[in-house]
């Protein structure tokens, strides 16, 4: 039986943190909630945890409203962005503490805490204080404390955001294994990073300005983003969105006219916003479309080129690390077969 959110809204000082949110979270599934900062992700988790009461709407666990159940009775485990541990307790005590508070006998709590520490790779660190651990290890302690609880609802609020990228890479993979074993709990995990949302989520919820824009499997959301806003949020760098039109059976982008590819052949003549992923653009010396490089950014093993063109800024993602001087004219190629077409209001019309 699932956790239902029904028409949840919450506003403070004129800012809508949650705006008529409906969602369903199921047991044994991990839902990633992706959105930019201030999309309402943290508020959503805090509302699920009972740390914040919605202005209106209801939360139902197995059909029973829990909206008025206070936080200490909800049996929700949470992991935060900051590494929150009890500084005066050992690593083992940090994990065992909530178990003892819930009435487990000391030997049993210790056994379970030890088993959970083993799961997160911290067996050798049980006697240390959190301050003697690295950031990644501290966050593993916080995670172990949440997992050991075996709470029916486990919430993780951007747990990797404060770690450097090697550790993020490593922990993401570990999380995949850990959560695969989590067959009973409802797990909700927020992130701003598309790759993280994709690889961890059984399901993705896309949030923007307090609203849920789309819910679906990672593949669905990535391949058929419901709107330009979703397309921007679930791609890094954000999907390029170019205002254009279909005129006389051709695509008009700025002063360029391009033949309609097969998948767009039935588009009616109208204004559209065309979407192109950064990975679908490449440096093409033969192309007549070019722009000036305003910024080159390295992400892992890729270079993002941000180029100012006649139809606005474009981001290209190219493999490997490249050193290209700012101001260089970059000729840009793409295949029209990779174009998304969105209506003028942003709704998806056709995906490639």
């Amino acid at each position: 039986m699932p956790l239902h959110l029904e028409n949840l809204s919450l506003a403070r000082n004129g800012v809508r943190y949650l705006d008529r949110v409906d969602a369903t979270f199921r047991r044994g599934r991990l839902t990633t909630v992706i959105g930019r900062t201030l999309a309402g992700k943290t508020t959503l988790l805090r509302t699920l945890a009972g740390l914040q009461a919605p202005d209106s709407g209801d939360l139902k666990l197995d059909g029973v409203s829990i909206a008025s159940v206070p936080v200490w009775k909800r049996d929700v485990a949470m992991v935060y962005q900051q590494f929150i541990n009890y500084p005066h307790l050992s690593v083992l005590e940090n994990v065992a503490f909530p178990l003892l508070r819930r009435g487990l006998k000391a030997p049993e709590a210790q056994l379970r805490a030890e088993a959970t520490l083993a799961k997160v790779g911290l067996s050798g660190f049980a006697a240390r204080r959190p301050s003697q651990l690295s950031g990644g290890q501290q966050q593993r302690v916080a995670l172990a404390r949440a997992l050991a609880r075996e709470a029916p609802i486990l919430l993780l609020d951007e747990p990797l955001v404060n770690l450097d990228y090697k550790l993020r890479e490593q922990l993401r993979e570990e999380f995949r294994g850990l959560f695969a074993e989590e067959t009973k709990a409802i797990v909700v995990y927020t992130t701003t990073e598309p790759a993280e949302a994709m690889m961890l989520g059984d399901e993705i919820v896309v949030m923007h300005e307090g609203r849920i824009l789309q819910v679906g499997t990672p593949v669905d959301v990535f391949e058929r983003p419901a709107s330009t806003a979703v397309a921007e949020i679930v791609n890094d760098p954000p999907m390029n969105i170019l205002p254009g039109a279909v005129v006389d059976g051709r695509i008009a982008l700025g002063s360029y006219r391009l033949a309609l590819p097969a998948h767009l052949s039935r588009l009616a003549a109208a204004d559209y916003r065309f979407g192109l992923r950064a990975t679908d653009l490449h440096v093409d010396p033969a192309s007549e479309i070019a722009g000036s490089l305003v910024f080159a950014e390295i992400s892992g093993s890729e270079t993002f080129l941000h180029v100012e063109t006649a139809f606005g800024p474009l981001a290209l993602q190219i493999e490997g690390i490249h050193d290209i001087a700012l101001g260089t004219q970059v000729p840009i190629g793409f295949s029209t077969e990779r174009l998304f077409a969105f209506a003028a209001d942003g709704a998806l019309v056709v995906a490639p």
Partner: protein
Amino acid sequence: MARITLERVGHRYGHAPYALEPFDMVLEDGRSYALLGPSGCGKTTMLNIISGVVRPSEGRILLDDRDVTVVPISGRNVAQVFQFPVIYQSKSVYENLAFPLRCRRWPIARIKARVAEIADLLDLSGRLGKPAWQLTVDEKQLISLGRGLVRDDVAALLMDEPLTVIDPQMKFQLRRKLKAVSQKARHTVIYVTHDQNEAMTFADEILVMSAGKVVQRGTPQELFERPRTTYVGYFIGSPSMNVFDAEIGAGGVMIGGTPIAPGGALPSGLPTSGLRVGIRPEYASLAQPEDSDTLAATVVGVQDHGSVRIVEVAIGTARARLKLGRDIAPPSAQARIRLRRDKLCLFVDDHLIAAGI
């Protein structure tokens, strides 16, 4: 701006082992450098030695030709930006930016012109009259940065994880600004960070540090293509470089008995043990039927990252990752893998001896 020379500089705190092992280094005038490494690697110690906060227990430090080893921070003429904004909350943005110049008794007209120039660079022109306390933390950090940049006579601009407090969404904007500003101003910039992406995006050259040593100095591209050690191959790039135990046989370099670059030019005098081959996930691919010298692999898992898929494979006892574009169907169980031989890195005892075979 100045060239910074470190001669046999080393440091230990009390009788502890070296926090920074003695080394020589010249940082050229007008270039930007990142000191990159995990916490405890010695990068902050190195920055503090350059700024004058820490006097090294060994060696000499020169700004251009001037020996400043015993000169305290106040006499070194360096500007610093810290993790957290250090500004005067009650003063206006303008006064904050003007302060370092007033201290140096610049004429008012010159101060005005210089502050306007820096404010323009940082997009702070519209907010010059605002009291600093009214700004967001990002804007405050921009002012800190502006205060570092405003003096045109500093020997170097030192930055210690300046984007720590910045919201991830804003980081992109600030990185961009930082890069543009440092390119334009041609300051000698030293930037400490543990974030590989930040270092590679920002710096002309990176000093990768580990356990008190500079393990490699190079451009981001050099670190990626020719990592001097397997550690750098692991630390730079995502996913990390794949590394296999290898041997030399009749077929040249071999992995598990399979030649991967037959007839390749090998350095002479290769040892018989401790040989390893590294390949970036980007440079390993699914083999086409006509390819020779391919490795048999078993697919262990596929991670869908969206624009790419990371395919984890087992090759003999070794694990490796491939990066496949979304348009390539990931193999289901068995696959043959081709390694780009011009991109192979050959390591002996984890030190690079050849790139491309």
